[in-house]
Every structure is written in C-alpha cells, then in structure tokens.
C-alpha cells in the first residue's frame, strides 16, 4: 500500500495507475483469459503426459485457468506496477467501480468482499443442495436404480465437496470480512489484496468442481482415499484443484484475519473486550492458517501420483494409503472446527443482544474456543480407529476426542448463563440460535457414541456418523449462518429481511431438518452404510420418509432465498440503523454504510455486551482520540485525561 492510503485511512481503492497492462482488467477479461489458460494448460499437459490417462492436461488446464482468471480480474496489476516502477498514485480510480458492477469485479473494500462472499456462498449452497436432492431422489427406491451407481457416487462426492467449500468459508468469508474490521475499529483489513484474493479463489473452485461430470465425475467422496482416487478418471482432478484453491483461500484469509485482529485493533479494544464473534473467527483462522497447508501438500502429492507416476500412496510400490488417510485427517479434523468455531462465535455473539444480558462467563467462553482450537489437533485418528494403524494409540485418541466435550460444554454453559433470568426477544436470529443449541446438542451427543472405540465398531462408516456430522454442520453451522444472515443483513445490504417470512422459515427448516435427519441415526444402527446407492428393502419406508422431509427442508431454503431476493431487491425501504437496538459497534454506524468505515478511529470505552448497566458508556467514542489520523491502534486503553 502507498503511504498515502494509510494516512487516508479509508478502504483501499484500486488505483488508476494499476490498470496499465494494456487491457482492461475485469471479470470478462478474467473469464476470457481463464478459457485461454485452460486451453494452454491442456496443450502443455497433454504434451508432457507420462501416462495415457491425460490427467496432466486437465490438472494444468485448471491450474492455468485459475491463475489467468486472477490475472484477468486484476490481481497482477499491483505487483507488476511495483515491479516495473510505474507510478502508484492515491487518486481514486473513478466511478467505474460504483453500482452493481463493483460487486462483480476486484474490490479491496472489505464491505464489498463480504457481500461478494455472501452471495457466492449462497449460490454454492444452492448447488450443493441440488446435489442432495438428487441423492435423496435416487434413494427413494433401493432398486432399480434411479441414478446409476457411478453417477450416484459422483453426486455424493460433489455434494460433499461443495458443502465443505461452503462450510469452510461461509462464516469467516461473508461475516468475518464484513464485520471484524468494524468490531475492532479499523477501516480495512491488514492485507486488503489478500482479502480479495481469498474471495476470488472461491468462484474458480466452484466452477472447477462443477466441471467434474464433464470428465466422468469422481466417486471418492470428500475424503478422496487412495487408491480409489488413483483409479478415478479426470473428474477427480476437479477435486484436487478445487480443494487446493479453497485450501489457499483458507490460508490467505487465516493469515489476514490473525494479523488484522492482532495488530489493527483500535484504542480501547482490549483482548477482553473483543466481541466473542471475533474470537470465533480468530480461533478458526488459527486452524485455517496451520491446517490448510497440510491439505495443499497432500493434494500436491495426490496430483503427482496421478500424473508423473510417483507412488506416495500406492502400497504395491512402496507408498501407503495410510499416509493419505493421516495427512487428510490431520487437516480434516481441524477443518471441521474451522466450520464450527465461528458458528459458536455467532451464537454467543447474538445471544447477549437478544437476551439483553452481558455474555455470561466471557473469559471462560474464550478459553472454551481456544481449548477446542488446541484439542482439535490431537483427535484426527478417531477417523482411523478401524483402519488398523497404531492400536496402542487408540486409548489416547479416544480420550482426546472425548475431552473436546469439555470446551464444547463450556459453550453451552455460557449460553445457559446468558439466558438465565434474561429478557429474551424471540426474534428470527434468536430462534435460529436456539435451534442451533438443540441441533448441536444432538450432534455432540451422537459424537460421543462415535468416540468410544467399541461402539464406533458398529457405528463407524454407517448412516449414524453421517447423521452425526449433518447435525453438527447443517443443524449447527448452517443454522448459525442463517441466524447471522437475518441479524446482519440490514447492515450489509441496507434492507431488513422480512421477519414474518423469517419466522415461518425457522419453524419450517427446524422441523424439516430434524424429521429428515433424526431417522438417519436409526438407519445407521440398522446397518445402512454411508454412500450406498442401494439399501436393504426393509429400510425403504424410512428412506422415503427421509427423502420427503429432505425435499421439504430444501424447499425451506428456497423460501429463504426468496426472502433474501424479495427483501433485498424488491422492497425499497432502507433498514433502520439499529433494528435490534443492540449495543455493539456495527449498529452505531449509519445505514447505508458510508464508504469509509470511521472518519476518525474510534476509541472503545466499554464492552459490547454491557446490558443492564445503566451507567455503561456507549461501546465506543466515534469522535476518536485527539490524534486519530492513523489506522488501527495498539489495542491499549487510552491514557486517562
């Protein structure tokens, strides 16, 4: 960044002088260059292919396409300008980034990126949901197949990978990027270009994943176990490149979030005043930063096994499928806490505002979040209890897995303490938070069944474990995402979501979700394995029931989409600045939000949850300290005047 920007303190703006590559950099250029990149990659890859499977061409095609897309959209401009010494001015680039077009192009404004992320994640969720509906359609009858078994497994794999993309990024992406800068009192993230990059890696990942059926799809599930993955056709290259892009997005966003939260807190924003949502994002960012590189490395090994005939994972040639299992789950288990930690953050953030009480046991809650962060590194082998490795370590992994219920229990305690003697408003976000608590309770309890090795012998790899993680991710994380959407939508878009429709949506979704997924515990106990395209005839009634309620659940999400589109684009009423009468700083901002967050850097004077204390000061002094002409702050209390 030019120094002038930092003094200015507003969100960084793409500079006119950065756009001197001889071609206009925008999304259309990006798409054209991506097509060119794909073609070039295929030519190069097929030219050098060592075996006749032609994976090299597809892998290089996807890789080149992703890179060229990023170049076309404008990511190369700034580094090239610096490299060649072109003048970087602090003049705004003009009005060509105003209006909806701005949201389709590279923007360094964290508010724009938050909205871009929200829309992209909702679209990805729709694709994943359509996959789920096709799966449930196929499972209406055990035989004859409605969907051929190879196509069925491709649907399962694409649904799971798409939903893992969504679950990885759908909280930190939209809400973290949008609100963390407000909550800590800064005008921008520490690395605005990395923030934009963390978003623009996502659309290529989604498109590449959706391209898998063109090459026959892939039948490996989201775990991508070898040697099954080695057998898969070029469809599996979508998994490798798409997942790598998401992994890079996690790393980039994690580093950025950690740096921002550590270094750019405004004066008075001490660690103990940090909103609990920021703590949730912070702990998930720790995991993203350190776990996703393992995924990227493992995927690179997988790619080499497929193209240049290395044998990392092939036991008949000296490798081992156990290596992939361990690398994958060493990333994979922290990954599931990347899903849920920000969801904890959302629920604990929203509860005090709607209970109108301080967050009960704030410090304990922080310890709980960080405890989960720490423990999540020591449990990965519970996915491999029955794989035959390291029997002597199983008691340890059993114990460490069960230990996670202690910090998770703290989250429930904090929620209970906050609800106790509260003055609860049953708003739509609150309903979804309470729904989260119920669903996550079921998910957590069923997790205990899976953590004990002897009971895991019966439940492992069955529909029981499938129901378990859907309760934690759909019933948990997705409910939290929906709560956050209802809660923050008026600040993000300037429009209230319709609250009556919201209440219908809650009951619709809550009932359909539970009626769809609760019977799946029984299916697992009745020996129905996961990822099967057929099942025992006596389970048909159960499966038809599940399918019907799954369709109803999907319809509830379409209803949600209708509410979003209707309220956003077809009601023309600006939302009140603080519809929830909440204390936290984002609600002190006007609606619609000005381009620059804070004219002067705010000074935080009290915590965000100081309800019930008549003498509590507003959360921040927006007038700023006398010399507030700089970004961020050291996070220390201002000296008493």
């Amino acid at each position, binding site marked *: 960044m030019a120094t002038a920007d930092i003094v200015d303190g507003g969100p960084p703006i793409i500079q006119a002088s950065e756009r001197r590559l001889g071609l206009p950099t925008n999304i259309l250029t990006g798409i054209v260059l991506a097509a060119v990149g794909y073609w070039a990659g295929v030519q190069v890859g097929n030219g050098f292919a060592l*075996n*006749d*499977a032609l994976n090299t061409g597809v892998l290089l095609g996807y890789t080149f396409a992703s890179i060229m897309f990023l170049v076309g959209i404008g990511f190369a401009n700034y580094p090239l300008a610096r490299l060649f010494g072109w003048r970087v001015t602090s003049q705004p680039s003009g009005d060509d980034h105003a209006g909806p077009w701005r949201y389709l192009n590279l923007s360094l404004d964290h508010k724009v990126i938050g909205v871009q992320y929200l829309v992209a994640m909702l679209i990805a969720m*729709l694709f994943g949901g*359509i996959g789920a509906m*096709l799966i449930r359609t196929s499972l209406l009858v055990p*035989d*004859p*197949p*409605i*969907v*051929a*078994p*190879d*196509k069925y497994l*491709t*649907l399962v794999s694409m649904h799971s990978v798409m939903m893992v993309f969504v679950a990885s990024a759908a909280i930190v992406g939209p809400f973290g990027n949008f609100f963390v800068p407000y909550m800590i009192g800064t005008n921008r993230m520490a690395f605005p270009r990395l923030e934009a990059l963390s978003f623009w890696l996502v659309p290529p990942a989604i498109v590449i994943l959706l391209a898998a*059926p063109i090459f*026959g*799809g892939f*039948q490996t599930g989201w775990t991508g176990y070898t*040697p099954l993955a*080695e*057998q*898969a*056709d070029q469809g599996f290259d979508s998994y490798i490149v798409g997942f790598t892009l998401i992994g890079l997005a996690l790393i980039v966003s994690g580093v950025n979030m950690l740096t921002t939260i550590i270094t750019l807190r405004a004066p008075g924003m001490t660690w103990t005043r940090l909103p609990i949502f920021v703590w949730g994002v912070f702990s998930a960012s720790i995991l993203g930063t350190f776990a996703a590189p393992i995924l990227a490395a493992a995927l690179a090994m997988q790619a080499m096994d497929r193209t240049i005939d290395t044998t990392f994972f*092939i036991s008949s040639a000296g490798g081992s499928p156990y290596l992939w299992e361990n690398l994958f789950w060493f990333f994979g288990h922290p990954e599931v806490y990347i899903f849920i930690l920000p969801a904890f953050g959302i629920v604990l953030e929203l509860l005090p505002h709607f209970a109108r009480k301080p967050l009960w046991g704030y410090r304990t809650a922080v310890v709980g979040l960080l405890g989960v962060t720490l423990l999540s590194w020591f449990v990965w082998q519970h996915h491999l209890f029955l794989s035959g490795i390291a029997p002597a370590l199983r008691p340890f992994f059993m114990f460490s897995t069960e230990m996670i219920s202690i910090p998770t229990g703290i989250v429930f305690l904090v929620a209970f303490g906050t609800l106790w003697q509260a003055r609860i408003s049953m708003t739509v976000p609150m309903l979804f938070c309470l729904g989260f608590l119920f669903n996550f309770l079921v998910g957590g309890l069923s997790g205990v069944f899976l953590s004990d090795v002897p009971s895991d012998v019966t439940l492992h790899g069955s529909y029981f474990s499938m129901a378990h993680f859907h309760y934690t991710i759909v019933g948990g994380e997705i409910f939290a995402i929906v709560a956050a959407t209802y809660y923050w939508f008026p600040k993000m878009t300037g429009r209230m979501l319709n609250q009556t429709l919201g209440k219908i949506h809650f009951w619709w979704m809550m009932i359909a979700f539970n009626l769809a997924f609760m019977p799946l515990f029984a299916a697992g106990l009745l020996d129905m394995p996961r990822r099967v395209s057929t099942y025992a005839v006596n389970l048909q009634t159960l499966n038809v029931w599940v399918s019907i309620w799954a369709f109803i659940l999907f319809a509830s999400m379409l209803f949600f989409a209708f509410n979003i*589109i209707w309220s956003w*684009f*077809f009601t*023309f009423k600006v939302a009140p600045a603080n519809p929830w009468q909440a204390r936290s700083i984002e609600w002190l901002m006007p609606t619609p939000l000005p381009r620059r967050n804070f004219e002067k850097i705010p000074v935080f004077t009290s915590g965000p949850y100081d309800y019930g204390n008549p003498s509590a000061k507003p959360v921040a002094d927006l007038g700023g300290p006398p010399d507030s002409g700089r970004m961020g702050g050291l996070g220390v209390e201002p000296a008493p005047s």
Partner: protein
Amino acid sequence: MTQRNPRVAGRLAVVVLAVAALLALLTAFSVTFVFHFPPQLTAQPTSVGNGVSIHLETVAAISDAIAFPRPEDPHPDWVSYLPTTIFKVPANSVVTISIDQEDGASGLRNPYWGTAQGIIGGKFHMSYFDDAGAPQVGDFSTIDGSTLGHSFAIPDLGVFVPLQGISDAAPAGSHNEITFSFKTGAAGIFRWQCFVPCGAGSIYGNGNAMSTFGYMHGLLIVQ
C-alpha cells in the same frame, strides 16, 4: 414511487433469467449425466422350455466392435460389453449367454475368479484359439487366471464365469465364443460385473470402463 416500477421490471427480469439459466443447467445435467442409462435388452426366448438367450460381444475398444457397432459412444477407446449392459430375463428360467470375446488377456488380481461357479453343469462351452493360432473347442470349469480377458459375474446369484482372452496368434477379426447357462430364481434386480481389471490407464486397472456404469457393469432384471 415513480422510480419504482422501472427498477422492479429490470430486477425481475434478472431474477427470471437467473432462475431460467439455473433450470436449463440442471436439466442438461440431469438428462446427459444424472439420469442417463444405457438401453435395456430383453432376452430372446429359446425353443427349450422357459429358456431365454442373450448374445453379447466384448471388445478391447468400442470402435473395434464387429457384431454390435456403437459409433456414437463418447468413449470409442474403452473396453466394453456390447450392445448394452442391462438385460431383462424372466424369473425361474434358464438363461443362456453366449459371448463373442474379442479382447486379449488382462489377467486377474484374484485368480480365484478363474473358476466358473453357479452355472448349469459347472462347465462352460468355449471355442478358442490355442497359442499356435489353431481353433479349438472344449468344455471347461477353470482357466488360468492370467489368461482371462474378462469375466461375467452376478455375485448375488453366485454366478462367476471366466472369459479367456483371445490368443495373440489368432487370425485378425476372430473371437473366442463362450456359452454358459444359469437358472434365475425369484424376481429381482441383480448387478453383474467383470472381475478382470481391464480398464487401462489407471492403477490396478479399475479405472474408466471399470468405474463407469454401462461398459463392464450392468444389471440383470429378473421379472
């Protein structure tokens, strides 16, 4: 309010176009991929009682097919059973399958499948070419696992039949012919598959044609 109507119309158009595009994408995906099945083949009745017969061809590459050419197939270089892989047969009947085996030997990963099981008489009839390229005929129950070109197995009915790969010395355009019969029981839908790892280009040979329905895999619909 005066501004409102034109904006509503424009936005509505965008929404309608987006939904239409999504539905078009979904339809294309459903028709060409998700719900795509190979055609069904009803077995021909034979003169013997309740018997039916099916004539099949196995090829090293679909483009080399003789009896059942399939020029429009998207994978002309894959191995395959032809003409299709979904067969309809009556319940409680004798099904006779004869296969023109035109592919060479690939070998089994588990030599156990080199022995025929579950077929009437325990032996299959085979006309083939020996290592010198001379035509031979015989009834067999076991052949060496390394000589298998493909196999025809219906695991749930206990039917496993090895198909010997054609000798390298055989005249061009010739084939081994393997004939066997088995009994069907009650109605039901059974999968059948090849146990020979014949899908080239991937480890252990179970890629492409071996991991895609409709080439080396199919269904036996017993009605």
